[in-house]
């Protein structure tokens, strides 16, 4: 559990537009250990999905990794992400209804993926495909069915089977349950967690759902406006958040216990700034109740290995 599998060093993703250069991910550094599940949370546009796309090297132009380094198993991979894409790092997308090619059978897509990366015969690939389906709880005799014959939850199981078919060391799951019904969400999440734990596969779980993160991840990284706001053990961060933004997120997460009936939900005032109109200093300072003078001028680094907030300065 201690060996570092993936390391991002000062990752920066920029989009060149007519109105100038926008930083979708700004100076992001973090590590993922072998076998660990790291949750990345944040609002829409915080740069979570961009981080995932950057690791696997699939940022759509005009976006690009403009700075920083990505290290995977002690190898620098940001220059040639193809070398590990699909083989060592795979991905699960948000919407299972659109993730599978509607005109090809699920077995066909599984076999194709296995043959593309592993040195096996067609018959072996087919057997692996059947095993993969069995593992995710789908009758292997449905291997010749087309995606439309499956429900949303089933299709996400197929997608997970696809992502794990090549025995990768890291799975990037980008909002894997957002498009599913609540009851199915838990099943799919448990399945993903179970399979990855069994194989010692690391997971980067990208979501905006704090409940999903709490149930699943070992560590958690909170992103805000393309920057890392807070990072730490899940239990630590959720029960004792240090960054005012994380505190706000926790306070605004709805709960269903007896006390919360009839209570109004907390809201963080304001909205996340647009990337072309970031405030100077800490990006969160206009919405922060505890901001002081320095927050408006100097951008805080990650302090005490925990939160990018000047309030942490005294603690460290």
């Amino acid at each position, binding site marked *: 559990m201690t060996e570092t599998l993936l390391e991002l060093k000062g990752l920066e993703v920029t989009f060149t537009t007519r109105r100038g250069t926008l930083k979708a991910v700004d100076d992001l550094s973090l590590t993922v250990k072998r076998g660990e599940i790291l949750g990345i949370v944040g609002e829409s546009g915080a740069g979570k999905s961009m981080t995932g796309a950057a690791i*696997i090297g*699939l940022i759509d132009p005009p976006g690009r990794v403009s700075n920083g380094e990505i290290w995977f198993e002690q190898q620098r991979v940001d220059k040639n992400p*193809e070398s590990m*894409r*699909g*083989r060592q790092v*795979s*991905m699960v*997308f948000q*919407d299972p*209804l*659109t*993730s*599978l*090619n*509607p*005109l*090809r*059978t699920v077995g066909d897509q599984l076999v*194709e*993926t296995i043959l*593309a*990366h592993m040195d096996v015969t067609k018959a072996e690939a087919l057997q692996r495909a059947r095993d993969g389906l069995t593992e995710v709880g789908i009758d292997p005799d449905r291997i010749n069915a*087309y*995606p*439309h*014959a499956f429900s949303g939850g089933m299709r996400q199981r197929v*997608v997970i089977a*696809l*992502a794990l078919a*090549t025995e990768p060391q890291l799975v990037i799951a980008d909002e894997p349950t957002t498009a599913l019904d609540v009851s199915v969400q838990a099943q799919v999440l448990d399945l993903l967690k179970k399979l990855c734990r069994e194989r010692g596969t690391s997971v980067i779980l990208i979501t905006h759902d704090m409940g999903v993160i709490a149930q699943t991840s070992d560590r958690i990284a909170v992103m805000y406006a393309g920057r890392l706001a807070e990072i730490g053990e899940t239990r630590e961060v959720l029960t004792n958040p240090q960054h005012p933004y994380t505190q706000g997120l926790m306070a605004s997460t709805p709960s269903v216990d007896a006390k919360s009936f009839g209570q109004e939900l907390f809201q963080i005032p304001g909205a996340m700034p647009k990337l072309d109109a970031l405030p100077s200093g800490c990006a969160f300072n206009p919405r922060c109740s505890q901001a002081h003078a320095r927050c408006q001028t100097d951008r805080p680094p990650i302090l005490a290995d925990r939160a990018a907030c000047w309030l942490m300065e005294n603690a460290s």
Partner: protein
Amino acid sequence: MLLIILRRLGQSFLVLFLVAFVSFMIFRYVGNPVDNLLGQEATNDRRDALIEALGLNDPLHVQYLSFVGRALQFDFGISYRTAQPVADMIIQRLPATLELALVSAIFAMFVGVVAGVYTAINRRGFIANSILSSSLIGVSLPTFLIGVLLIWVFSVELKWLPSFGRGDVVDLGFWTTGFLTVSGLKSLILPGITLGLYQMTLIMRLTRAEMLEVLRQDYIKFARARGLQDRTVYFGHALKNTLVPVITIAGLQLGSIVAFAIITETVFQWPGVGLMFINAVYFVDIPVMSAYLLLVGTLFVLINLIVDLLYLVIDPRLRDGQLKRTGG
């Protein structure tokens, strides 16, 4: 699945009956067949005898049914101009048109799809944009001008290819083909390109637009994330999904290629049914015109039927009769 095919066949027959009806109305009511056959100076006795012989006094539906019945036996009457049976004239000339149409269609489909995929993949490339710009010429220049230009360059100036006719043909008894001789093949090139150029650019632009649309889909992104080669992603995953709309248009265009080969056949003096139709129009040769209408109508219905069946082959969702398009 079987039900879909049967229903589709039923619709095809219905359309064919309607086409036959229009064709019949032209045959029966455009001009007066008796005048056309006997001329102005015939005696009343002879006129009455002919009217009786042609069954023109029968009720309309009887005449129509007997028209359809004869058409089913490939009997379209006698040409007013050449006094030959129309069916014989068509059989004589159809191979020339069908071979020309086949060459044009293959050219249009193959070059159109390949160029469409290429321009979609290399969206910002210089060559792709050049192809795209020059394709506007194909869309906007009229067919006869393209034909004349090609003749000027390749026949008159370079003297590489013949400017008219089919060249030497081989008679197989029921079919005369230009595919088996060098001069026959050379003769096919210029008219084939002329006839297919418009369709080619149309298919290319459609393929490009569809391909760009498909490349934005999640399953393409997922295919890339699975680490598949670009080639597999483009041709194994994207192309098949672009084909359904492309086949629709290509099918209709194939019909147009045969139906509107008239201009190309005129420019290249191609001895096909188009040229026959033009001559029939000059001489108000009604039976030939109505038979041609029936032929083209049948062809369109047939192609549409094939296109619909191809949908079922390509898209499994349609096979299961599931028409709602979930999953893009």
